[in-house]
């Protein structure tokens, strides 16, 4: 049996979600744009789904725009908002530890004449409001800070940042993907103007996501076509995906409290045991202000990809922030922003637990990891 502790990378779809989607591939295949009965049925289920997802984040139905996933939602939020509002200003503030999609989107925006400021984080990965204030100019039109970090799990003071931006009349976007299903999302409480959501991160299907756009905010579309989604995102709607995401949100809303408690138990057990059993092992990220499913560690003298491969041989699936496992051969920008040097970022191990993990999976890691670390340290010139 494979112990899968990489829920941050990909989640299986919940069987109940899968079942709810099935009719919409063959029997209920209508296009909401069609005027006949089959088309009307599609419209009806789409709007019901929209309402379910709106409820999940305390938004209005009209504020939910379906996209193909979180990356597209981030593109729509940044390009759509920036291009529509460039007369008002050309300055955008993000953090040093945003998701790679946002980092690359902002690189493109620089080419289009925008200026980007990156807010540094502390050693635990926390963003401070004061550091945002330091960067504010009269040209600032958008602030975007991830709700929680996808690598080290650090939770940001979103409510505080939202309240500040609202007061200054600057739009506030948050990529909430890493926090979905792990923290209660509430766009009203947190004064959020734009929010990125993914379906797979709440055990829904891939290929569907949402951008929440607060009523009154104007965006240019990034995908142009038949004018679906109020012209903000054209293309025939992915009805099975939409139904699946709504079902996933519905299940999550009901079961979240129980699930969080269980995952938190795993997190605490993993961190405690690993730090006790392995000398010169350290926790990356914040000890408490972190997502209940996230464990991120580093071990002196060990490289992450070697660790990943060795655990893979023991049927354990994990992630690493090591440069060796990335497409660019650069170490994780998040770990560097925490103040780690390359060598330390190199040795990181990320464990993320989820809905279908059992205590056996946790035990398997606790048993295997000390052996693997010990073997690799014997190979290492950096460990005495």
């Amino acid at each position: 049996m494979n112990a899968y502790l990489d829920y941050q990378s990909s989640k299986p779809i919940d069987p109940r979600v899968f079942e709810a989607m099935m009719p919409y591939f063959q029997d209920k295949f209508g296009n909401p744009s069609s005027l006949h009965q089959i088309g009307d049925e599609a419209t009806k289920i789409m709007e019901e789904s929209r309402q379910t997802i709106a409820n999940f984040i305390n938004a209005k139905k009209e504020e939910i725009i379906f996209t193909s996933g979180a990356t597209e939602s981030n593109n729509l939020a940044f390009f759509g908002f920036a291009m529509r509002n460039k007369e008002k200003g050309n300055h955008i503030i993000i953090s040093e530890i945003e998701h790679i999609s946002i980092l690359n989107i902002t690189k493109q925006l620089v080419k289009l004449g925008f200026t980007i400021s990156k807010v540094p984080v502390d050693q635990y990965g926390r963003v401070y409001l004061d550091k945002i204030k330091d960067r504010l100019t009269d040209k600032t039109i958008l602030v975007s800070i991830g709700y929680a970090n996808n690598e080290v799990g650090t939770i940001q003071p979103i409510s505080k940042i939202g309240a500040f931006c609202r007061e200054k009349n600057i739009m506030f976007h948050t990529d909430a993907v890493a926090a979905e299903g792990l923290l209660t999302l509430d766009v009203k409480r947190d004064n959020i103007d734009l929010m990125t959501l993914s379906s797979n991160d709440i055990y829904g299907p891939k290929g569907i996501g949402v951008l929440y756009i607060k009523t009154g905010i104007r965006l240019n579309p990034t995908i142009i076509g038949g004018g679906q989604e109020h012209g903000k995102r054209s293309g025939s709607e992915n009805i099975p995906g939409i139904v699946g995401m709504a079902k996933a949100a519905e299940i999550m809303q009901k079961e979240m409290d129980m699930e969080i408690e269980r995952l938190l138990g795993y997190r605490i057990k993993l961190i405690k045991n690993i730090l006790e059993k392995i000398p010169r092992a350290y926790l990356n990220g914040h000890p408490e202000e972190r997502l209940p499913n996230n464990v991120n560690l580093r071990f002196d003298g060990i490289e992450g990809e070697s660790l990943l491969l060795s655990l893979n041989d023991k049927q354990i699936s994990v992630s690493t922030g090591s440069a060796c496992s990335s497409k660019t051969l650069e170490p994780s920008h998040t770990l560097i922003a925490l103040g780690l040097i390359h060598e330390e970022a190199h040795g990181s191990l990320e464990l993320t637990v989820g809905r279908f993990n059992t205590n056996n999976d946790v035990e398997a890691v606790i048993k295997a990891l000390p052996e693997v670390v010990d073997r690799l340290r014997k190979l290492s010139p950096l460990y005495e």
Partner: protein
Amino acid sequence: MKSTAYSEKVLDHFRKPRNVGTMEGEDIGKGRVGNPVCGDLMEFYIEVKDNRIKDIKFQTFGCGSAVATASMITEMAKGKTLEEALKITRKDVADELDGLPPIKMHCSNLAADALRDAIKNYQKKKGQTSETEVKEEKFSKEIAGEKEFLNKGVYHDASDISSFEGKRTLIVDRGEQSIAAAIKLSKHIPRVVFLTPGKNVSASEELATKLKKANVKILYESELLEIHGIRTVEKVLIHDLNEDTKYELFVDAVILL
């Protein structure tokens, strides 16, 4: 291609690396090569008899292919003359392993380089041309941002520990008092980085050992170039003297005694 898309041969050498270890002695050449991009490090030891590599050992800090290429080259080099061994290229190693993912070719480059370094070290040893390395000490050099951030993250005095509470602190080597300050601070704050231009910490053995045992991250062969931030110190630019590369390190405080 995925980094884990390795051939069976690569995986075999990764799982059961050959010739791991270190050696010491008169006829031993030692090589050490680092990759500044990804931080890999490799050390090779060769024992030479009658101009042939009689024994060879290695240690590595790196990814799967770093381990496998190092292991493979030890098998390839053993028994060869020094001249033959010097001719082994990264391509030879990769071919012998039934290929590597393209992005990983730099790792096997490292193994060939480290072996060459060990051979050269041996030849130098036997040729008695002991080069003493001269490293300029640049204590008095002006660091960009030093004045701007004075008392806003840059400190000339480390005695008031409360100013460093919760801060990632970088201490630049300015002699024994800076080492003592690093050791003292490490007992109170979680992150202390000590930056020295030398290959070793130059201090009394007692103090140097204390520093290594303390919760202090030591950056050797490095110098501080610039200090950056808005209002307060947020990051610094460091020059890796060995690799001649520059990189950013996020810190909240810099101590220049």
